[in-house]
Structures are given as structure tokens and as C-alpha cells.
């Protein structure tokens, strides 16, 4: 079940044991959406075991949590709805009007509204999650997917996969204020904690563009080179940054690796071998662990962030897609 080379395994297991002993106090809950399993796998970050598997709507992809930790939001793409799940009972509380084919979304830092990419309709739906009311629909490029809200809540970024742009939308007016052309098939956008940098991955282009959101200029394009891995199979998708702005993690899809990038110099420091077709990433709030969804090996890899080592792989449902960690 594991894809790590055997001679490495013993060391990693020892590492995992030490880690578990040291970190038993901070237990978060990790929620993984299984695109083909139509379910959510619920993982305990202390034991690194699946506690429960919950049935949800069809083709669950994007998943996020309210800042207060009281609601899990899941895009049930083929049900054309966003489902709200109670994290304590794990019951589906309500269905939100997401617009057709919701794929990925971002929550305003205050917890409302929710910005949803409607992949089939070339638009972003702005939804009041309390009232379950659509506030606005913003036309964007073809196949919007990546969504990010700036930490101050003022700017929403949507990436369109076929138009190859990051669209900047002012949240006050829900109007597009600028567009940045990036490489082919932008999948994901992530702001730095200080809001001064925006990272956009281009899956088919094989690059990550680091953009200054003020000037909307690309500051740097990051390339990835892995010995023995073909250029074409390096397909960046999920990006996560540490709060101090010093480090970035980039999931490289069928290259089966997570790149560790120095977020100040933009140099790639290391490639960590994880499961197959790694797409999305989530850090624990204490930034000690990083979880990766590996869609083709049906598992989640756990990375020890201070050590930069893969410590475990956890079997989850079919085709894991998104992942979110509880704030507490």
C-alpha cells in the first residue's frame, strides 16, 4: 500500500512514531473529499487514522471550512450544489445555491460570502451562505477553477483554465479590475499571509507564477526539474504557503511529488515523493503537518513540515481531490 522505497521506510516509521509522541496534544480534524467515492474521509491528525467516512453528494471536489470551524463546505459538482456539513455530527445540514457544476471555491476571511467557480458556465457565483442567496454572478474566462480571496478580503482571484488568466475581482463591487495572462491551464491561486504575493499554478504550462497583486505583474515564474521525470508529467496544481512567507509547497500532479520552494528566493529546495497524481494540499494550523491528496493511489500523504519528510500514507476513498484541516 505504500510507494516509499523499503530502505527508507524504517527511518520514516521511526520518525512518525517520534512525531506522534511529540504532537499528541494538538489534534486537528482533516477532511478529504473523494471525487469518485462520493464521500468525505475524516482523519484525526494526532493518530493519522481515518476516523470515519461520510457519504456526500456526487463528485465532491472543492472543500473548505468556516473560520469558526462550525461548518464544512463541499462542492458536490454533479449535484450542482454546495453542501454544508456539521463537523460534529458529520450530517449534511443544508444545500446551497452554488450555480451549475461548482468545482472549487473560496470563503471570505469573515466567513461570508462564498465565492464559487462554476466550471461549465464561465462564471463566479457570489453566495451569501447565511441567507443562501446569490449576491452576484461574475462572468470570467472559460472553465474557472482556482479561487482565492486576499487576506484583507478586498480582492478575489479566479483562474480560468482554458482562457489561461487570473482574473482580479474587487469584492466590494464584484467587478473585474484586471486580468493577468499566465501559462496553460491555471488550476489554483493562493495569497501569501501578508497579501503581498499571489501564487498561481499552471498545470499544463508546468509553472507557478508569483504575482504582485498591487501592480498585477508577474514577478517570477517558477520552473520544476526532477531528474528522471519527464517535463510533461510535472503538472503543478495545489499551492500552500507558510504564514511567515518563507516557504511554499507545490503539488506536482503525475510527477508524484510535492516541491518545497523557498518563498523568498523562489528556489526549489527539495522534492518530496508522495502518492500518485497529487493535487491539493492543506497545512495544519500549527504548520507541523501537510496533507496531500493523491487521486490515483487513493491515499493521503502526510508530510512532517519541520523535517520535510513524508511520514505516512493514509488510505482514503476513491480519487481523493480536496483537503481541509479544522482551525482548532
Amino acid at each position, binding site marked *: 500500500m505504500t510507494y516509499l522505497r523499503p530502505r527508507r521506510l524504517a527511518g520514516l516509521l521511526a520518525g512518525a512514531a517520534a512525531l506522534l509522541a511529540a504532537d499528541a496534544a494538538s489534534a486537528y480534524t482533516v477532511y478529504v473529499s473523494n471525487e469518485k467515492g462520493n464521500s468525505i474521509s475524516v482523519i484525526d491528525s494526532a493518530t493519522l487514522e481515518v476516523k470515519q467516512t461520510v457519504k456526500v453528494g456526487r463528485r465532491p471536489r472543492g472543500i473548505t471550512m468556516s473560520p469558526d470551524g462550525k461548518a464544512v463546505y463541499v462542492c458536490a459538482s454533479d449535484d450542482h450544489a454546495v453542501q454544508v456539513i456539521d463537523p460534529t455530527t458529520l450530517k449534511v445540514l443544508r444545500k446551497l445555491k452554488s450555480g451549475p457544476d461548482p468545482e472549487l471555491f473560496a470563503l471570505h476571511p469573515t466567513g461570508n460570502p462564498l465565492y464559487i467557480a462554476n466550471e461549465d458556465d464561465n462564471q463566479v457565483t457570489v453566495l451569501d451562505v447565511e441567507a443562501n442567496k446569490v449576491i452576484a454572478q461574475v*462572468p470570467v474566462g472559460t472553465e474557472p477553477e482556482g479561487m482565492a480571496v486576499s487576506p484583507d478580503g478586498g480582492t478575489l482571484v479566479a483562474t480560468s483554465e482554458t482562457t*489561461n488568466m487570473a482574473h482580479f475581482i474587487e469584492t466590494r463591487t464584484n467587478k473585474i479590475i484586471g*486580468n493577468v495572462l499566465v501559462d*496553460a491551464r491555471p488550476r489554483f491561486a493562493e495569497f501569501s499571509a501578508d497579501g503581498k504575493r499571489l501564487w498561481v499554478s499552471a498545470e499544463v504550462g508546468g509553472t507557478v507564477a508569483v504575482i504582485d497583486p498591487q*501592480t498585477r505583474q508577474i514577478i517570477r515564474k517558477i520552473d520544476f526539474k526532477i531528474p528522471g521525470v519527464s*517535463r510533461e508529467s510535472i503538472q503543478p496544481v495545489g499551492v500552500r504557503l507558510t504564514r511567515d512567507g518563507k516557504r511554499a509547497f507545490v503539488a506536482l500532479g*503525475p510527477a508524484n511529488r510535492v516541491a518545497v520552494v523557498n518563498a523568498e528566493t523562489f528556489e526549489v529546495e527539495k522534492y518530496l515523493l508522495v502518492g500518485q497524481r497529487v493535487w491539493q494540499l492543506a497545512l495544519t494550523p500549527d504548520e507541523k503537518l501537510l496533507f496531500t491528496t493523491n487521486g490515483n493511489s487513493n491515499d493521503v500523504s502526510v508530510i512532517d513540515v519541520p523535517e520535510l519528510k513524508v511520514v505516512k500514507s493514509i488510505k482514503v476513498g476513491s480519487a481523493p481531490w480536496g483537503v481541509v484541516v479544522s482551525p482548532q
Partner: protein
Amino acid sequence: MLTRVVRLLLPAALLAAAPLCPIPGLRPAQAQQPADAAAPAEANPTAEAKPLEIRIGLITRAVPPPPLYDLLAVPEDEAVAGAELALKDNSTTGRFTGQSFALETTTLAEDEDPADAARALAAKGTRLLIVNLPGAELLKVADAVKDKGAVIFNVGAPDDALRAQDCRADVFHVAPSRAMLTDALVQFLASKRWSKLFLITGPQPADALYAEALRRSAKKFGLKIVADKPWTFGPLGRERSDSITRSDALVFSRGVDADVIVVADEANDFGNYIPFRTFEPRLVTGTQGLTASTWHPAQDAWGSAQLQSRFLRSASRTMRPADYQAWVAARMIGEAATRTRSADPATLAAFLRTPDFSLAAFKGVPVSIRPWDQQLRQPLLIAQPLGIVSVAPEEGFLHQRTPLDTLGTDQGESRCRLK
């Protein structure tokens, strides 16, 4: 001659509200050009510049009406529906870049000359031509607009000669060559270690070309053709009158020690008649059975579910390889127009030839142009009628440039001299 023009008008408000920021990495001249467009719209509300129009022509031929019993008749709008969808995709992007796209489709009747159609389009200033015609007619089009600065996108002709002795500097090949199709199939057979092939070749000239490509692929990847026979029992699939020749056709396949039968029947006259009618149990591949193609209705990996559903919604049918090829051609034009901010065919063609050009084409890896013969390098789907079996290039087939170049004619062996 039937013509149809599609032009998508864009809401001016959207255009004004969406300045595109200059892109680092573009050549200075190009980066400076949109300086006006990048100014905040609010600051200069009257500066709603007329969008740059990119005009695309599509030349195709009317499909003869199918017999009533034809289960999988070629739809009337084959290829056209693909180009029209790409026009929508391009226009969505154009809203943000100040470009608009128009598509004029000319559907030729049986006796009409494609050269006339091409000249008529060029005279109207439409010099980006997507051509969905057989090889000989493609060359007629190329000759007709040779001095008009036109750029041609071949989406219908697989002939290897068009990429070799008959290659042209103003023609890009989006359709895969026969060599690519047979290399893809043979790679798959090699990866399964099904190395003994029984080749059955139909009577048409195209069948002979397919068989020739297959023989070359077998040699290239070390498979053996243990029997090589012509099909002499007529177009059974088309005539539906197989009773007389049934026994002959059955005996025809007896006693050949092969792993698979490969049929060369591009006209679809008999290939579907062979599976399950052979003496020994034999898998069938080639132009029927397990085939290599650019697209398939069962394809849903790498986000292609989105393209499939967009196509289904706009055309009310599933996407066929010719539709996909026309979509890719029109998207190549769109991508080149976005990146160069130009509508000039020569500028777009120059960009497509550079390593900077690549397109996300729902195949998991970017597709691009081979500079030596202007063939689109692309993965090919190995599929049976209702399912994808594999994707070529197969794992383990390596190339110093990209595994995609294990399919088709490589630089060193190319006989193309672009002019």
C-alpha cells in the same frame, strides 16, 4: 456552396472593465502595444477601442446522406461543431484581451472546387483557413492561396506525404498522420507483447497507405507481420449482403498463427464485419475494433469531461475526432492571437512554430508543433467502441526530446523541406 458565419459580439462593458496587464516575457514591442488597453477603464471611458477581429475560415465538404440503417452516420456538422465551440472559447478570452473572433464555414457540394472556396475567403480577408478535406484537395487549397499570405490548418487529411515530400510552410497539421496512428497502436500492441500481426488490407488507395504505415510501425517497434492479405470479399459492412461470401471470408482467416488481426479499412467497408466472424478467436484492431484516435466519447480524464459536456450542450451530440481536431485548430489560432495580440496570419504562424507555443488540449500534457514538418505532436487515445483502453505514447517508449515524438516521423527521418 453553403456558407455560415458565426460572429460572437461581446458586451462592451465587460471589455472596458477588463484591462489586461502587460505580460513579462513577451517581446518588448508586444508588451508595449497594449499600453492603452491596460489603462484603467474608468479613467478613459470613451477609449472603447474597436476589438481586433480575428477571422477564421473553415472549408469542409457536405456528407452524402447516409443510408437509413447507418448506425453511426457521420453528422452533417462534423468538424464545424468543433470549430464553433472553439470560437466561443476564444471569444470568452477575447472579452478580456480586446479581441473578437469570427468563423465563416464553407460547406462544398459534391462538384464544387475547394480552390474557389479558398480564394473567395481570402478575397474577403479571411486568411486563417481550417481545412477538413482529403489530402489532394488540401493541396489544391494550399496552391490556390499560396500568394495570399494564408495559413492553413489541416484537420482532415492523415496522409504522410503531406508531412513529407508534399509539405508546405503555410500548412499546419492538426490531424495526426497515419504514421502517428499506427505507431500509437503498435506501441500498445508491443506493450502487451502481442507481437504477431495478421494484416488485412482493403481495396482503396487509403487502405494501402494505412497498411504501409502499419508495416513501418511494426518494423520500428519490433513486431512481426505473420500474414498480409488483401480483402477481396467486397464492402460487406456497407452492403449488408454477406450471405454469399460468408463462408469464404471465414475460411480466409483460418490457420494463421497471429495474436491480433489488424484491418486497414478507412472507408469502414468491411472492418466491422471481421470481429467474431473469424475461425480462431482473434482480437481485431486497426481502423476498426481497437483504434487509435485523437478523441473519443468515453474520454474523461484531464478535465476533458468539461470539454465533452460543453460540446454536448452546444452541438447536441458527442464529440468526434474531426470535431476535436477542428476545435484544436481554432484554439491554436486563439492562443496565438492572445499571446501575440495580433490578427495577422504570418505573426500567428510564426508564434505557433516557436517553442513558446503550447496548448492545453485535454490530453494531460501540452500539445505543440514539430518544427520540421509542422505536425501537431499529441497523445493519441487507444480505444474500443465504448471505452478508452490506453493512451499513447505508452510508458517506456522514450525519446530524447519528448515521448510524444515516438509517434510519427521524427526529425532525422523527415523528408519535409518546408517552403
